């Protein structure tokens, strides 16, 4: 007896409520974007400069006392959060201190770090600074630019790739799904105010890759079925293709999620935000490859007369089964 996530034969109609799904997606994108505009992302120091210090002490973290101890140094905006992780020892109390970028110079000075440590030692004896990271405003500005370019470049590159391998309608559908995933991920980060740093950009790009992976598998089947069922409606062909690949879509999503969830729970707090982004991305990416990419493809329509247009723009590489 085999474990099956979906029945052997399925015939769901994925477009019966196409408008509803597109509506929900559009609404979520608007909410996510609005949250991004009005609440803003909780940028880490990679993107806005400043210093983060990870402290470890044997006594419980008293955020108020920490704050008071640091206030005398006049460092401007200082935020202190306690960090929890199941892997911590009984007497391991960790806090993250974030200090805004200082006006004088780029990175924070070593003497300042020592002074801060001395002040904190008064309220939490034996406190250790297990990591200190300081990024100057110059670099953080560049990192933002690089990150935006990277995401845009990734989207553009796959747009071109899919356009070459399929047709432009497929490319647009895939990219719509990608933009959907990226916007929703940024939205969830701004809504939940999870720290958004350089690693999250890596996660975003991975989401782009993953979502695309899913979409491409469906599209590949659509292309094949379009040749096989020349007389059927596009919506019917799309439905057949999605149903045929549904088992694979679910299998891959579940194995990936299994791996990611174990990393989320056991991988430590340092990369938890990063892993969260990827888990969210896998879920959203799986959804979007069916309900966004395929629906857009349906709305755009595909040229069906394959026999006569072997040389038209867009799919001249479509028949290369590498």
């Amino acid at each position: 007896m085999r474990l099956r996530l979906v029945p052997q034969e399925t015939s769901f109609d994925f477009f019966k409520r196409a408008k509803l799904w597109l509506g929900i997606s559009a609404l979520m994108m608007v909410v996510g974007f609005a949250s991004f505009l009005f609440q803003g992302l909780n940028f880490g120091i990679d993107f806005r400069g400043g210093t983060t210090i990870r402290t470890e002490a044997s006594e419980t973290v008293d955020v108020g006392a920490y704050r008071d101890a640091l206030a005398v140094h006049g460092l401007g905006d200082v935020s202190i959060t306690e960090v929890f992780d199941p892997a911590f020892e009984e007497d391991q109390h960790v806090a993250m201190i974030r200090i805004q970028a200082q006006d004088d110079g780029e990175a924070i000075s070593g003497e300042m770090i020592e002074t801060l440590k001395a002040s904190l030692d008064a309220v939490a004896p034996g406190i250790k600074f297990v990591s200190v990271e300081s990024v100057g405003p110059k670099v953080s500005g560049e990192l933002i630019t690089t990150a935006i370019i990277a995401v845009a470049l990734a989207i553009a590159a796959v747009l071109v790739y899919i356009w070459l391998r399929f047709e432009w309608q497929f490319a647009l559908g895939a990219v719509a799904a990608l933009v959907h995933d990226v916007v929703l991920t940024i939205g969830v980060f701004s809504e939940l105010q999870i720290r958004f740093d350089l690693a999250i950009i890596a996660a975003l790009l991975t989401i782009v890759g993953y979502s695309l992976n899913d979409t491409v598998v469906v599209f590949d089947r659509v292309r094949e079925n379009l040749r096989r069922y020349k007389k059927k409606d596009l919506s019917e062909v799309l439905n057949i293709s999605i149903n045929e690949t549904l088992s694979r879509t679910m299998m891959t999503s579940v194995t990936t999620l299994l791996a990611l969830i174990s990393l989320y729970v056991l991988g430590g707090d340092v990369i938890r935000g990063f892993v969260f982004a990827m888990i969210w991305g896998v879920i959203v990416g799986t959804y979007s490859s069916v309900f966004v990419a395929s629906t857009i493809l349906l709305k755009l329509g595909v040229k069906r007369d394959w026999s006569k247009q072997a040389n038209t723009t867009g799919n001249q590489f479509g028949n290369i089964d590498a």
Partner: protein
Amino acid sequence: MLQIDLWKRVLIWLVCAAGIMLALPNGFYTRVEQANDAAADIIVKGETPERLETAGQWPSFLPSGLVNLGLDLRGGAHLLAEVQVEDVYEARMDALWPEVRDALRPERSTVGTFRRQPGPVDQIRLKISKPDGMARALEVVRGLASPVTSLTGAGATDIEVAAEGDILVVELSEAEKLASDDRTVRQSLEIVRRRIDEVGTREPTIQRQGADRILIQVPGIGSASELKAIIGTTAQLTFNPVVGRGSDADAAPGIGNKVVPSLDEEGFYYTIEAAAVVTGEDLVDAQPSFDQNGRPAVTFRFNTSGARRFGDYTAENIGSPFAIVLDDEVVSAPVIQSHIPGGSGIITGNFTVEESTNLAVLLRAGALPAGLDFLEERTIGPELGQDSIDAGKIATIVAFVAVLVFMGLSYGLFGLFANVALILNIALIFGMLSLIGGTLTLPGIAGIVLTVGMAVDANVLIFERIREELKAGRGPAKAIDEGYSKALSAILDANITTFITAVILFAMGSGPVRGFAITLGLGILTSVFTAIFVTRLMIVMWFERRRPKTIEV
């Protein structure tokens, strides 16, 4: 149908075996690391019984390449420094000024008297009293120019001379500035490297980034401040003529001179000529030693041209004081007692033995040609790195087991094939990482875990396809064959698109993110390889042996 040539089979298994062999040392990380260190010591410092024994911990016929651990896993310090390339322009102008002065002196009759005017530090501005002689002055000063020595600046000269009314302006040409910037950054890089090597830390990364930046990563060092102390900031040694001495820090130094504090006499300042007679660049050696009173000191020796200039200067200026200036502070200002011809000397001051040793190291390594501005500093404690490794290990194992069980339950025997491929896959990733000397970072571990999840995708695509073919009524052999060939385009499309994003991440990212891109990219390559070749080979071999009439996937 289901045929794979023998040579292909052998090649596939050889690749897998090579991957496992290359990955093997990582399973015994500490032991191999110690053995490698000992082997390196034997080459550099010679054999000792202990070293031989440690080196023997790992058989020399096995590969010994290890995956480098990133700073976030090993702990250490990371600095991104920007070289203040403009610093050099000022020094160049100060060095040029005496030449300009000497060249114009014989022309007094046409250009009249001339004075250096205050102005930007990267220019020499000269006011001449006979503006009619400007043409001649320009000609003379232009005669001092020499061609730029760089590929791009061919044909250009190093200085630009222009007239602004009765002011003659000399500055470096754009081509020379570019060439000079490049030289400055390369020199700084080399000097930073030498200083870090002198301390002898393990596997430092010292790289040039962009036009004027240097990335320095040193694992195992306590903090970024410690690293900065090793690099020093400018440690510029010069020997300058002394003009005067006083206690006023704001005294007007006069054009071409500057006021610098004394290193150990609190409240005293020296006015010195900005143009140095000899600089640290002319040093060939510096050693800690003791002066005739038994106090710690540093002896040094100049190269030939430095020795000549030093000798000439001392011969001409017997009786005048002479400042030894380190980082714009006067270490000492002895009076020249006699002509010093040999090009060697001694620096005395109130040094401790440790200070004199450090100063000698600093001088030997050479001075940084320009200041460094630190744009980014990160210190990661070794405990945090160890915690991350531990957490990453557990998470990877759990993820691995979960996926193995899930695949086994879903596809039975075929799932088992996929699982063997998955294990090989991880071995291949580590093998390739060791081979290319890649760096494993915390996000890199996440990349491996993600690969564990996604690597089965290619197999899933194939198995699902075989299921479909079976359902369509094809025989087992035909179904397997069709399954593989029809799934291929989807596998390639899906993985190429993900690979594109990994490449972009690698190109644009830095540090940990790049580590993630590497493992993700390698994971894609190995998972495609294992899916199309390894599982296929396993299935074919199983099929040949059993010849089943029906198969269940």
